[in-house]
């Protein structure tokens, strides 16, 4: 199980975090762990068939692209 924590600058509120959560959970094998609307940090974990690129793409598609990685 891989895990990453990263910052999503576009998060503005609770609802945004929810959108991110939904998008991540849609990627097979990926799981949204936690997200904070104040720090805008999101933690996700995944295993095959998911990979980081897929997750990042899914988030880019809904305009919540990951920015700098907090915990690579």
């Amino acid at each position: 199980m891989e895990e990453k924590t990263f910052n999503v600058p576009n998060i503005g509120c609770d609802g945004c975090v929810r959108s991110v959560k939904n998008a991540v959970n849609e990627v097979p094998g990926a799981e949204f762990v936690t997200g904070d609307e104040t720090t805008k940090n999101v933690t996700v974990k995944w295993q095959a068939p998911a990979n980081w690129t897929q997750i990042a793409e899914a988030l880019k598609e809904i305009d919540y692209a990951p920015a700098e990685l907090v915990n690579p």
Partner: protein
Amino acid sequence: MTVQAQKQSQVEVLPIIGMTCANCAATIERQVRKLPGIEAANVNLANERLSVSYDSIALSREAIIARVRKAGYDVPEIVAGEDMEDAEAKARAMDIAHQERRLLVGAVFTIPLFLLSMSRDIGLPGEWAFQPWVNYLFWALATPVQFYVGWDYYVSAYRALRARSPNMDVLVALGSSVAYFYSVFVTLGLLTTTSAAGSMAGMNIASNAVAAGAMTNHVYFEIAAVVITLIVLGKLLEVRAKGHTSEAIKKLIGMRAKTARVVRGGVEIDLPIEQVIFGDVVIVRPGEKIPVDGTITEGATTIDQSMITGESFPVSRTVGEEVIGATLNKQGMFRFKATRVGKETALAQIIRLVEQAQGSKAPIQKLVDQVAAVFVPFVIGVAALTFILWIGSGADFTTSLIRLVAVLVIACPCAMGLATPTAIMVGVGKGAENGILFKNSAALQQALKIKAVVLDKTGTVTRGEPIVTDIVLSPNWTEGRDRLLTLAGSAERGSEHPLGTAVVKAAKEAGFTLLDPGQFQAIEGRGLRAVVDGQTILIGNLKLMVNLGIKTADLDSEAARLQSEAKTTMWIAVNEQVAGVIAVADTVKEGSAEAIQAMHALGLQVIMLTGDNQATATAIAKQVGIDRVLAEVMPADKANVIKQLQSEGLIVAMVGDGINDSPALAQADVGMAIGTGTDVAIEAADVTLMSGDLRGVPRAIRISRLTMNVIRQNLGWAFGYNVALIPIAAGILATVAWVPDILRQLNPMLAALAMAFSSVSVVTNSLRLKGSKV
């Protein structure tokens, strides 16, 4: 015959739940726009609605809802056939029911708690009241209030704190929680203090009971419960007084024609209006509503366009000229080519403008929240300071803690929730007394800040219907004024044209009996011919006379004079000779000039905004004292003018009566509709001036001013008593020897008195507004 690609444009508005910020709205818009078949998607954060326009053949409503849900937001189910506005009305009813439930539960537990607690403090019941189990009883009574009724405050306070701006709910949650939990500690005996200054109830009245009983510490359960319950009462009043959402959009959509008669493949068929496409040839018969916008290809007619353009007189249109959807065709029959359908029509544009305007208005910040934002940190600071000073002066931890708690408890004013709603209720009532209906409390609170007033002309400043102003006789006419008016009125008897009806009205009002016109013949765009009492009457414009070779020289200069006064001149010829000229004009309403004077006296800019022509507009403006006139303005631009003024930082009021005013009415900070105007205008506006008298505008501003004063005073009363007791709670007088015990520290009696006095003061002060003169 080419096969048309099937496309069915569908417009829908869906409620969305769960959006909390602009980013959410933007996300939803982006996601929905990506769907195939979407033509436009727009999210309105304030209204919590998603407006979509899509090809219903390529995309289904369910697919759109699914996409929104996927993004993490919910679309509540609306039973088929139920309207958007109905769903909102339901939500409002649920909200009211929720508040009523809270109040009921709160009252049921709080009243006995309060009565018991108070009477115990006065020493009424007897010594048994000081047994420990009584406190447990109080605890039990207070708990449902604290957590069931008070739950909403905890949720709201949490959100407010996350956003780092305390509001009234934070204050309530803080004060009531401190009171409640402190009392729990005391009840459980966890807080023992024997310091004389702290614990012995400073009440001489009850001192016997105290000495005899076991209770040595105060509990404040009833304070917490009363605070929560009273604030809920205020909330209920607020929710009840909240205006219902405007039905303007609903009414506007209802103005569309339902079907259109279209020629397809050489065959005339009736289609539902959504299926009319660009380029369709549409047939319109007399009396029908024109379905969509287009250009006439065959025929000529007169059209009543007042609903879209505000022009009171029907206009004549012929081949090559434009017609507008939703306007009323009068007597001609014609065909036209559709150039704008669906969401591109002028009507759809008005609908969009009104929606946008309604959505762009952010709710005004409540004064009480603004006060709380400052007060909460202040109180916490004072409480902390109190604690530090006592500890520093050598008092034990528990005593100092008790004083800190006391400050926090007393600083929660229970009447603050009543301050605004009670004033608003009385303010709205005052308005109603004066024929001014405030539909929402925001308008009542904003009106006093108005800096510019924009007035529509027809129907607002003027009466809206033309009346006869002058009758000028030709020197050749010997039969007198009365005879001429009778003949003219008779000839115009069946007329539907406002000019004609004005003449008929004038004749009737003068008491003449009208005769039947024979051989009535309408001359398109020019006038009419009829035979009355054996005389051939010709009524019409100058062109008519000239075309028929009737000499007008005698009255030319008079006619020109009347025209310069922006009046419409009707020439009357009897038996081929000019008999006279009747001038007709839309006159200024009584009170308009006076109202504008009053507005100028209040320091307001007054601007006239009309779709009518420049000459008439300027003439009327001069009559009433308006110095800025914008004429020949389209409905969309009316809203833009308002926006322009707002961008200059002005609070703008708009007064209007027509459908073409509705975007501006919705855009204005305070939209005022004339009571005798269209339904749509009344729905789009925040205020209705029942009688249509413009003097209502300065009056409304005065009422607003008075109401805001009362709100401020109420907040003063609400906070005042409690703030005055803060020093006592902090124990400032604890060490002063000659002060009676009751003032050495906080006790429930003092707190209860503060609550009672502040509530009574607030309500009484609000009622005082009833008696004031406007």
